[in-house]
């Protein structure tokens, strides 16, 4: 855990000076806060000695002060202290904000970059929603914890210590009362927190589960209504909610002891202070009647000091309370630290080689006895003994049922994953020898789960080529058969795509994604089931254009529909992670039972075979 905290703190960078300077102001602020009541008590003691307004400037002795001071000077000192305190409060607050927000901003950026550096294998480890939470809520928590650390964590114990010291300075032995009461409060708080936390952690889990079930209910409301299960769902929710409530009540009852405990200790300390102080004041007082004016002389303890003792007592105990609350909050934020640290510590499984190649000769691809598994400890290989040889410019189809390893095969080509054993060659060189960017610029993949980003169509297309001209984009759209519908849109290429591409149909999205990949003018173009929502006629047109317009590019197509790949130069049939057959449509129709079965089913299904 410590290493994770350290790692996170590294992100503070340019804000380090603020983080370091904040505690200094907090020290000044708390010091002043503690000295001020002391000065006040001296002021009260001296007031009584004054007889007329002229005495305002007169210098007095005070048993607690080594020097003489006038009331006027004392007020100036107090005002000065308050001004200093306000200044350090403002500066401290300012720098604390800069430091903590700065840390959070840097951390978000670091985390973002880290996630960007992840390989597919890394990405698979974390779910999307958990990564989003880490970058939002968790960082928010760390920001708060950090701000609290450099402000309150410094301030509260200091306030307690200063107050205790000042209590001794002001009240002498009477201050032992507080020292005696501290353990009572600490032990009390400890037990309250311990028991309450235990229940709370449990309840929070149930709370999450409850919310999860509400979520399910809302998204499945059609099912609920269609099966007339409203009452059933109500009862389910009522029971869950009510039993969760009784757990909450249990925990809250314990927490409810907090205030009385606090009150009790403060009250006891008040009574003791007042009682003992009364005793001392009574015992060690004398009266002087100089010049007809009565003054009381307190040798041990004055009434002014008694009043400041009361203030210090409350300050000490309040700050203990504060410390306990901080500890609870910091403990809770540890979970956020752990989750963020986990991402930061994750090593990208795929890195650039030390002396990378920056040129890809041609679009030829070779798999030499490739074995592959997603996890080292997986029970068996996802791909075993794959041997494929594709010449530059060929059109290759891959067919196979779900889980047969089609996507796994093509993922190895652009090094989205690394092989477990064997070799994948692109342009005659091992993919691991290439610079990653070079490799991926030359091997364009249209993923199965493809996404467009919010922005205009043109912006999306320019992902393929940053400085693409309108003509280039239109040409790519022509190839992908996207031109027609793009032209029909009122704003054409400048049409805005909503987040998740929700305002274009599935088939349109797929065609735009293909256009985006074509714009890269890659040596190898891979379509992973990328035309499933496109009608067969358009599908055919896309293939025709790919063949004619970019003849030198190697094209690999994964498809469910035989019609999409039947005219390929070679078709690879995968079954259960191994190559079952390779050949042309005619050959396979004769030799491969799997191919025959699929062909038969789809023929029955209809289509244009």
């Amino acid at each position, binding site marked *: 855990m410590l290493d994770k905290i350290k790692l996170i703190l590294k992100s503070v960078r340019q804000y380090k000076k603020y983080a370091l300077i904040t505690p200094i102001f907090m020290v000044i602020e708390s010091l002043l806060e503690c000295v001020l009541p002391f000065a006040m008590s001296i002021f009260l003691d001296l007031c009584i000695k004054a007889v007329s307004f002229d005495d305002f400037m007169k210098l007095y002795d005070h048993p607690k002060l080594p020097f003489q001071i006038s009331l006027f000077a004392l007020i100036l000192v107090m005002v000065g202290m308050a001004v200093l305190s306000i200044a350090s409060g403002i500066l401290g607050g300012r720098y604390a904000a800069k430091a903590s927000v700065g840390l959070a901003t840097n951390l978000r950026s670091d985390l973002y970059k880290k996630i960007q550096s992840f390989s597919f294998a890394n990405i698979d480890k974390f779910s999307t929603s958990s990564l989003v939470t880490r970058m939002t809520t968790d960082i928010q928590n760390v920001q708060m914890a950090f701000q609290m650390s450099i402000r309150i964590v410094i301030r509260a114990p200091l306030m307690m210590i200063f107050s205790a010291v000042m209590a001794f300075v002001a009240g002498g032995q009477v201050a032992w009362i507080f020292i005696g009461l501290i353990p009572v409060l600490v032990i009390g708080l400890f037990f309250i927190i311990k028991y309450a936390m235990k229940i709370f952690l449990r309840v929070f889990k149930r709370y999450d589960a409850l919310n999860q079930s509400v979520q399910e209910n809302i998204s499945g409301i*059609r099912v609920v209504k*269609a099966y007339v299960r409203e009452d059933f769902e109500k009862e389910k929710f009522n029971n869950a909610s009510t039993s969760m409530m009784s757990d909450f009540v249990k925990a809250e009852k314990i927490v409810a002891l907090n205030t009385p405990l606090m009150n009790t200790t403060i009250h006891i300390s008040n009574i003791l202070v007042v009682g003992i102080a009364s005793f001392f004041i009574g015992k060690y007082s004398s009266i002087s009647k100089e010049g007809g004016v009565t003054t009381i002389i307190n040798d041990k303890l004055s009434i002014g000091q008694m009043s400041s003792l009361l203030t210090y007592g409350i300050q000490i105990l309040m700050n203990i309370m504060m410390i306990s609350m901080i500890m609870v909050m910091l403990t809770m934020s540890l979970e956020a630290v752990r989750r963020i640290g986990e991402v930061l510590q994750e090593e990208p499984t795929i890195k650039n080689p030390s002396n990378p190649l920056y040129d890809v000769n041609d679009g030829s691809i070779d798999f030499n006895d490739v074995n592959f598994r997603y996890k080292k400890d997986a029970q068996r290989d996802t791909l075993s003994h794959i041997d494929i040889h594709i010449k530059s410019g060929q059109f290759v189809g891959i067919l196979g049922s779900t889980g047969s390893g089609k996507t796994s095969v093509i993922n190895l080509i652009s090094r989205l994953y690394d092989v477990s054993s064997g070799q994948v060659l692109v342009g005659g060189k091992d993919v691991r020898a290439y610079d990653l960017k070079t490799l991926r610029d030359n091997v364009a993949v249209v993923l199965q789960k*493809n996404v467009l980003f919010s922005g205009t169509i043109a912006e999306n297309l320019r992902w393929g080529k940053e400085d693409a001209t309108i003509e280039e984009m239109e040409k790519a759209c022509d190839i992908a058969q996207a031109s027609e519908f793009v032209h029909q849109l009122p704003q054409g290429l400048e049409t805005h795509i909503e987040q998740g591409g929700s305002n274009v149909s599935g088939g349109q999205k797929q065609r735009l994604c293909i256009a985006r990949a074509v714009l890269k003018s890659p040596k190898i173009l891979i379509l992973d089931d990328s035309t499933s929502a496109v009608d067969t006629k358009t599908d055919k047109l896309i293939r025709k254009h790919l063949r004619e317009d970019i003849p030198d590019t190697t094209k690999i197509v994964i498809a*469910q529909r035989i019609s999409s790949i039947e005219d390929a130069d070679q078709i690879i049939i995968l079954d259960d992670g191994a190559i079952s057959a390779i050949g042309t449509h005619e050959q396979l129709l004769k030799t491969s039972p799997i191919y025959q079965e699929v062909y038969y089913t789809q023929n*029955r*299904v*209809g289509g244009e075979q």
Partner: protein
Amino acid sequence: MPPVKIRERGRAKKGTMKRLVKKLFQLYPGRLIFNAFCIAFNVFANLCSSIFAGLIAGVLTKGVLENGGAFNAFDITRFYDAQVMGNSFTIHANIPILLIAMGTIYGVGVFAAWWWNRSMAIVTQNFLNQFRITMYNHMEDLPIKYFDTHAHGDIMSLYTNDIDTIRQFVSQSLPEFLRTGLSVIFCVTLMLINSIWMTLVVFLGTFAMFLNTKYIGGYSSRYFIKQQKQVGVVEGNIEESIKGLKVIKVFSHEEKSSEDFDKLNDTLGEYSTQANIAGNITMPINGNIGNFTYILTAFMGFLIFIIPGFNNLTIAKGLVDMNLNIEAFNSTIVGFLMMNRMFTNNVSQFSQQITFIVMGMAGASRCFDLLEEKKEEDNGYVYLCNIKYKDDGTFYETNDHTRYFAWKHKHHDGTIDYKELKGDILLDHVDFGYNPEKMVLHDVSIYAHPGQKIAFVGATGAGKTTITNLINRFYDIADGKIRYDGININKIKKSDLRKSLGIVLQDTNLFTGTIMENIRYGRLEASDEEVYEAAKIANAYDFITRMPDGFNTHISGDGSNLSQGQRQLISIARAAVADAPVMILDEATSSIDTRTEKLVQDGMDKLMKGRTVFVIAHRLSTVQNSEAIMVLDHGKIIERGSHDDLIKQRGTYYQLYTGAFELE
């Protein structure tokens, strides 16, 4: 589908606070009033510190003066007449008596504190539970339209964020409001009794705090709102880029994305720094205004003490001469200064609560909005009942599950008619629009005779799903009629109408629980054997039994531990166990591999046997053996007939069939 409204995160409606507090008091009147007393006593007990400090200071000074020096403060036999509270009162007391009184009040005060804290916790949790349940129960009864027109995330946040702000309000803000209110009233009264001059100084300080809170607080909340908006933007970007991370990698777009993100992130940093700075400095400034007030008050006390003719003014006794009266000075100033601290602390604390109150009201307002939504109306008076046939072909009503049903028609005159359920459905010149301005179905007429299979084909948005929404009355038609076995469906009780219709939806929504529970959802009283049977019909039995825990396998809500195809099979089994005489099947669009697809297909086919079925087809293979195929376009039926008829027509269906059009 109708357009989805995204809620605005605005302010609370007027009267929300009143409504919430009223609701609260209606539920727990006794407890709350008693709690209020406890809080009042608690406040009073805490104030006693300053009152007693003043009294004791007065008695002590008097003691010293009367005894001419040292004396035993704990001598219980000696009483002193001390002038206290700015010379307003004379008390006859001694130190031990005062300490005992103080201890007693403290004791009761602690008990009161314990009681109200505990009681408020119970009230809060019970109230929230009630509120949650009321909200949920109400939500369950809302029409589908509500769910279609509200973003699910927004509905969800009612249960998480908004309820939480109500908790904050009830458990913290409300008692705090009362506590500080009472403290302030007590404090002000006591301060005025002690000295009006000094109180004026305190008011001056309070005004300064008010200005500070208003100015800096306002600045802070402006940036806070900006920050929240920017958080939304940044979160959107994060979500999009993480979801599309694989695409980013494939296009080596990492650096560009990071650059874009940094820009948004830096803006967020800027706003949030400003919001945080303002938030951080409000408290120290207020606290130090308190310090200034403290010093000024003491100085004022000194002036009253020292300047001849400057008399202390109190509300109890009017002008009182305290000039050089040590006893009065000590008792007044000590108590007053403590009170001053307490007062300023309360004021600055309360300024923090304001944010929570505003947030709580906004949250409550949104929850009330849900409660104000109109429930789904059901004026049906035709009921569904199970029947048993006698040998002579006549039937009688029974409570057993018999697979045979009849419509039970209660007439106004009290007579009851029974009509066998056959599954004859007729749509007669139906018009419909999600909003009255925009019709999506125009003059649609369809007849499905018992046992027939009717298929809908057409592009996205043509109105296929809409038709099924009308048959089970998720939405009500604007014009025309829908008849079920000759009965207008508006007359049928909605729940019974829906029970008579089995549905397999496009999105396979499963619920957290075991597979068994999920299938049984179709008919809660189904036996284990019936569930197995249904699973077999749906072709789900094999894969379920192959799982380590079989039917007891626990699945989470999104069914993420099952494949898409397996989830579909379970939802088919769920419909099979419901065993409704009429089925509506909305095919899933998601691509599943050919083998599973075949299983799904077979399962559906078995399910359809012997029933009236409406199929929304995404694959033409499902359609071919239908009695009638409706080709929809822009809310109109443009072609109808059997597969062979339509192929012969060489129209739209033909083009779809030959793949010239996208179907999706």
